[in-house]
């Protein structure tokens, strides 16, 4: 029954995915080969996860790398969290209310939350965390959300009131920030020595897992918190193993040395389809958080012409890119807002692959092949030649550049490709806007606010509007969109934003990649959803008869 429900859920979420055998728990048919025993939820066992890089530190608020945040999210909790549909749900706050003008936000905190050292969690910790992050001496890379706050007041030990000077759309989301223990950290914050505090080595949090050990470059171990306020997690221990080589991770998977890893598209669809692997692991796929794009420098007179940009969009075939580079494991992008989130709409202009139309648009913009050499020229006879730049170390982007180069050649545009080391790429080309076109990727949050990426005021070297896009209507929409705290009010602004961007094409949105994890088939209770698979990790379990490790 549970199996059926899970499959149904998977089908509903990913219609197309059903065609591939690779979705959802697919162990049935092989059950007779496994030892039999009770499928009842049981405590114990260890979840072994491989990651390429070590964590940066154990105060996740100070780090910006993925591994630190993954580990941190097990040890710490925020006031709110994301549920399986990417909506905001209660965590350490049991409820909250916004005032009508969106300027005050009042949290009611749970009374049964304790720090791992037994101290009670109170409103003072919330106030302390806000003060810590906004303290100029704290080197937290993401402060913006908390800097928008005017004041935080403790009304009683379990009630906090936050006030904003003006409505701030991401207000609630920012309170997903990990809350830090006041009783352990106060002196370090005042001295600006947070990074050097014991907390950064032996953290005390309120989350579902307690810190056990960190062997730099080798592993991080956490164990289940028996007093967790939402109940003790079933899986007794999590080991994050640092394995810097992707090839080694893959071999460890084959030898069942790790229980979870993300796969590349080729590994996912070609190298792991043999029966033994299918028996040992369940494969999942769900939309990733980032999209890959082909960006124009709009300050370049050739690309300032919308018809040229649209011609390029018609010349490039997104299905071809997805098939050729991701073996079909990606989703066409139509705009910068993540599909599956509430602000997304697919009711926007699309550009089918059509080289003839592309040529016609180019001709309209004055680009015609005047001397029959296969390359289009402008009225002064200058050929259309430019350089696509991308960063080293990302094979997908390099391949995209190569395919695009071929497709553009077919419409008479000459593109060179330059692949540059990351640091130099950002510093020498992207920030000073010394580029003609880029292939790059961008991660998206759950909130649709895109102010810093598209607003015309955000074009300084260190700012994120890299194409130099400027459109008064878009500016207005972005301002209005972030100035309300009600989803319903915000939706129309973002729908319109997506329409305009799809028509204006400051960049060609190519695709959203898909996350392709495999999890050892002994783990039960995994239910893929738009948020991925980890949102209900505390409910995962291994039936007693399948447990492999002592959980400590």
């Amino acid at each position, binding site marked *: 029954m549970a199996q059926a429900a899970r499959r149904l859920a998977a089908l509903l979420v990913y219609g197309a995915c059903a065609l591939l055998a690779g979705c959802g728990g697919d162990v049935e048919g092989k059950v007779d080969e496994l030892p039999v025993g009770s499928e009842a939820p049981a405590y114990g066992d*260890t979840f*072994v996860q491989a990651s390429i890089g*070590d964590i*940066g*530190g154990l*105060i996740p608020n*100070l*780090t*910006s790398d993925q591994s*630190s945040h993954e580990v941190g999210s097990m040890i710490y909790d925020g006031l709110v969290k994301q549920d399986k549909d990417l909506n905001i749900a209660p965590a350490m706050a049991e409820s909250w209310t916004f005032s009508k003008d969106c300027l005050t936000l009042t949290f009611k905190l749970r009374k049964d939350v304790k720090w791992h050292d037994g101290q009670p969690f109170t409103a003072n910790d919330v106030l302390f965390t806000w003060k810590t992050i906004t303290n*100029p*001496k704290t*080197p*937290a*890379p*993401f*402060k*913006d*959300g908390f*800097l928008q706050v005017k004041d935080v007041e403790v009304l009683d030990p379990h009630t906090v009131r936050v006030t904003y000077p003006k409505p701030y759309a991401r207000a609630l989301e920012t309170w997903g920030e990990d809350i830090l223990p006041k009783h352990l950290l106060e002196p370090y914050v005042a001295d*600006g020595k947070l*990074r*050097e505090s014991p907390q*950064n*080595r032996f953290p005390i949090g309120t989350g579902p897992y307690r810190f056990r050990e960190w*062997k*730099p*470059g*080798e*592993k991080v171990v956490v164990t289940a918190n028996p007093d967790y306020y939402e109940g003790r997690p079933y899986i007794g221990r999590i*080991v994050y*193993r*640092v*394995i*810097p*080589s992707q*090839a*080694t991770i893959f*071999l*460890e998977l*084959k*030898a069942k*040395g790790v229980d979870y890893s993300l796969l590349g598209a080729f590994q996912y669809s070609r190298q792991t389809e043999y029966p033994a692997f299918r028996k040992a692991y369940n494969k999942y796929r769900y939309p990733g958080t980032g999209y890959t794009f082909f960006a124009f420098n709009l300050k370049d007179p050739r690309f300032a012409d919308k018809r040229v940009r649209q011609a390029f969009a018609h010349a490039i075939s997104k299905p071809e890119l997805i098939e050729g580079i991701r073996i079909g494991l990606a989703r066409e992008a139509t705009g910068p807002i993540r599909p599956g989130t509430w602000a997304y709409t697919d009711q926007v202009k699309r550009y089918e692959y059509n080289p003839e139309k592309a040529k016609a648009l180019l001709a309209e913009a004055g680009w015609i092949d005047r001397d029959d050499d296969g390359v289009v020229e402008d009225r002064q006879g200058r050929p259309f030649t430019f350089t696509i730049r991308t960063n080293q170390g990302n094979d997908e982007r390099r391949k995209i550049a190569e395919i695009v180069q071929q497709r553009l050649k077919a419409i008479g545009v000459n593109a060179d490709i330059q692949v540059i*080391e*990351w*640091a*130099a790429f*950002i*510093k020498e080309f992207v920030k000073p806007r010394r580029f003609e076109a880029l292939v790059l990727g*961008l*991660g998206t*949050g759950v909130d649709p606010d*895109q102010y*810093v*990426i598209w607003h015309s005021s955000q074009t300084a070297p*260190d700012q*994120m509007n890299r194409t130099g896009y400027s459109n008064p209507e878009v500016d207005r929409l972005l301002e209005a969109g972030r100035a309300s705290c009600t989803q319903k009010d915000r939706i129309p602004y973002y729908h319109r934003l997506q329409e305009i961007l799809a028509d204006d094409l400051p960049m060609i949105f190519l695709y959203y990649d898909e996350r392709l994890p495999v999890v050892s088939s002994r783990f039960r209770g995994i239910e893929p959803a738009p948020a991925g698979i980890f949102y209900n990790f505390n409910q995962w379990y291994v039936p007693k008869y399948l447990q492999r*490790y*002592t959980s*400590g």
Partner: protein
Amino acid sequence: MALFALRRLLLAVPLLIGITFISYLVITLAPGGPLDFLTPDDPNASPEVKERLIKEFGLDKPIPVQYWNWLTRAVRLDFGRSFLPDGKPVLTKIGERLPITLLLNSVEMLIIVGLAVPIGVLSATRQYSLYDKVTTVFVFIGFATPDFWLALLLMTLFGAQLGWLPISGLRHLNWEYLPFWRQQWDFASHLILPITVATFGGLAGFSRYMRQSMLEVIRQDYVQTARAKGLSERVVISKHALRNALLPVVTILGLSLPGLIGGSIIVETIFAIPGMGQLMVQSVFSRDYPVVMGNLVIVSTLTLVANLIADMAYGLVDPRIRLGGRRGRR
């Protein structure tokens, strides 16, 4: 001898300063800085944090001033703290990584020397024999085989297919629950593949040196003399020839001392061993200047010391060469 050592030591000081200055220059001039990696390329990142950290790390000052600040602290053995969010002292970070690298490389070195000397000697004494040809081909295959490729093959065979040996890491996940002798075996079994791979690659150099040096020696007159005295071939080779043939090998051995702590990046990366090689690569990639510099100082000091030791050892084992103060004697 003492005078010679002292003079060399004194000369090493300006040399070391020169090395650190050039290293500092090169690492700070490399494109990008630590802040490009600490403050993410993300729409929600706060730019003021960057300013703040630049100040805190002293990166707002001109490079010579930065270098001077570093040097004045370094002479007091204060190498500062890592720029990364863990903010650990550089020496702590190196201390965490050093033991495993030292262990791996020493064992590897012992095995290489232990194998290379007999291989080299036998090849030399039986020059152009079938044995000579076979070992020559064998060690050159080792020399030409890329580490990572061999590592992956062995991991696939012994780890994934046969399941005899662990694939990567240092300890089993349930290590702390194992009985004592199982713990030792578990740890050792994790080291077998990495050491095999590293040894196979390093065997060629040493055995060829040994062969070459032995070939030269056995053509010498005194070896002929020894034979003429009627000594058995065994004694001639092992007592008279080998001692002399080992001289150049001692020098090479001395020069490979710094390699003991340098660590092999490829082997460490592919076997997920948290050693010095990985630390160095990661700190260079993230432009973690204090850690890079700390590492370089240790490695270059060791190189200089190893040079000195090699020179002195050479003098000690070879009576023909006496250095320094006794130069006057002809």
